[in-house]
């Protein structure tokens, strides 16, 4: 397991696409190229896209294709260095001080150090892939911290000294684009925008991801979802929802409902907003009929 290995695996964009397909993720040429470039150029990969287009799934698939463990840092408003880098276990330190009594004790020992995702990554860059999820939710201060981390791949712990990554780590960032990221961050990364797939690719994804959905049904679901997405909904359904819908309808159909009805009854897993639901339901019959075609 070394970076030579990663380069070997990332021989060409096609090789990556094939391996991703083996780990049940269908990437288009553009995404495969971006992944290839990120690995070969040794830059972080920044994935942007609407919720539910498979950004996090892509990161998981990349970890799988490299045979590495995925370390995930979920961002949220207010996340700070203590959550991302490291933290001392203060309670244990206090106990240790009391317990030691007259003896000397090193309270900055490894056992008092809680490694958070970024530090975990630095300690074993060849066995892990770092996913910084939904970075747009964090605030600007954290983005600056991350920027520093991504340029040097080192962390300074005042009590311990500087920890450096032995090799170039593989980092994936995702963003829902609820706010614009700093130009400096975009600049430093290989960038890819994931859009909703076309009907055919979506049908393939549904086939691959769901347990036992027939091909015709996958196609029908993909067509219907495309149609629904074209409407001004509060929350357009993502790919994950489409897969769930296909699964749910299949289960209902096995339970005895005929197809169009099974789709209608399973709509709750596709559309999860009351108003969207009431807007779609009157037309749903027609949409499903047309999709089943």
């Amino acid at each position, binding site marked *: 397991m070394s970076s030579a290995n990663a380069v070997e695996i990332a021989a060409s*964009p096609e090789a990556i696409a094939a391996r991703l397909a083996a780990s049940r993720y269908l990437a288009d*040429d*553009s995404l495969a*190229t*971006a992944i*290839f*470039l*990120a690995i*070969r*150029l040794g*830059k972080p990969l*920044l994935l*942007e896209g*609407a*919720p539910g287009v498979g950004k996090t799934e892509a990161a998981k698939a990349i970890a799988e294709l490299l045979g590495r463990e995925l370390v995930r840092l979920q961002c*949220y*408003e*207010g*996340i*700070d260095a*203590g959550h991302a880098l490291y*933290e*001392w276990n*203060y*309670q244990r*330190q*206090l106990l240790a*001080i009391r317990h030691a009594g007259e003896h000397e004790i090193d*309270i900055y020992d490894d056992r008092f150090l809680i490694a958070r995702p970024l530090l975990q990554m630095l300690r074993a860059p060849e066995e892990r892939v770092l996913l910084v999820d939904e970075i747009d939710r964090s*605030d600007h*201060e954290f983005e600056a911290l991350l920027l520093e981390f991504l340029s040097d791949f080192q962390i300074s712990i005042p009590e311990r000294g500087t920890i450096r990554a032995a090799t170039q780590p593989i980092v994936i960032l995702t963003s*829902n*684009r*609820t*706010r*614009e990221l700093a*130009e400096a961050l*975009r*600049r*430093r*990364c*290989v*960038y*890819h*925008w994931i859009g909703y797939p076309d009907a055919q690719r979506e049908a393939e994804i549904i086939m691959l991801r769901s347990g036992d959905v027939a091909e015709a049904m996958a196609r029908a679901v993909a067509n219907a979802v495309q149609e629904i997405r074209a*409407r*001004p*909904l*509060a*929350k*357009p359904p993502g790919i994950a929802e489409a897969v769930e819908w296909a699964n749910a309808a299949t289960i209902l159909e096995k339970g005895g409902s005929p197809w169009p009805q099974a789709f209608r009854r399973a709509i709750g897993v596709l559309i999860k907003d009351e*108003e969207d639901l009431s807007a779609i339901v009157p037309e749903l019959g027609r949409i499903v009929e047309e999709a089943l075609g």
Partner: protein
Amino acid sequence: MSRDLNNPFAPFTGRRCPEGADEGYRQPSISASLPPAAAPFLGFARLLRRHAFAIAPEQITGFMQAITLLGPRSINDIREAALATLAPSPDRRSEFEAHFRAYFYGDAKPSIEGEEDDETRIKDDRGTREEEDPARRQEKGGELSSATEQLSSRDFQRDADGLGQFRRKLSAALPVRRSFRTARTRSHGTLDLRRSLSEIVSADGDIPSPLLRRREAVPRKLLLLIDVSGSMKLHTADYLKLAHAAVQGADRAEVFTFGTRLTRITSALRIRDREQALARAAALVDDWDGGTRMGPTLLAFLSVPHFSAFARGACLVMLSDALERGDHADLETAMRRLSARASRLSLATPLAGDPRFRPATSALRAILPVLDDLVDGSSLKGLTDFILSLGRHAPAADSIWKRVS
């Protein structure tokens, strides 16, 4: 090969790079260090820079390295490499593609349609508007219920100063919410174990007074939705000035215009110089002085996830007369959704400048229950006062207007 590519080619001049400014004097040194085959790629990056894409030298380096890595086997490889490394923002993707085609396939020059036309039209607007202004009334925002008529003409010499003051006061005047980020404090907080422990260690085991942290208060986002339809023609220029001041003054402000289309103009308004910012914003908007399809456009706003996220927890001020032709069911749905997302939803309508104004149209009556404020948007002074008062509590629009009518 890659050694050569690592040279920084040109200074990063970003958006402010004037037309071809870095072209001349750098040329000899580049041709000396770069293989001739690489020149087109550098030229493409420069072309993008000239069209206000922010592209850093390291991105150009990355672009060329990526092309080398990919082969390149086809023109598509070059396109993919450009997309991944030069990272054009998704909003400008089509513009980027047009430039790419024009540069590498030699297509006709990409036309940014109608830009010239729009620019001139908005300039005309501004010219006529200044003369019409003095007839306008002025009232305090939020005080509409008072029946006293304040007939004062708007003096536009003070106009600019008023906005300057507005800009400075804005971020302090917006309502605050508790952030998840904590800050040091002397009282009313929870124990800061990290600092307390290091204090204990440095004091050799003595326990000094505990150190505390408390969650910070941050100003809420400000979201301005500006109606640019024909019926708002007299006011849009003022509103854009206000929007520019708001974007300059608040930490997180977003501005959209809507008419028949929806346009995000925040990035244009980030330019500090007002004339330049407004010209840029004017060029972005395609539907000046057209019709209104308020309901559908607002629904479109809500259906774009990263737009509707702007509204969450924000102070939303809509500058519109809410004159929706025909069916207003869409408008009602959109306003209800917006009010569910926003912390405070206000509608400022220029019609309310008239003391005889009552929310009588069916569209206004339908949306009144979900509005937090319905105020006068006919004068800049009234509007700025109102926005600066957003931090203070006010009774719901519904109850104020019931008392009036």
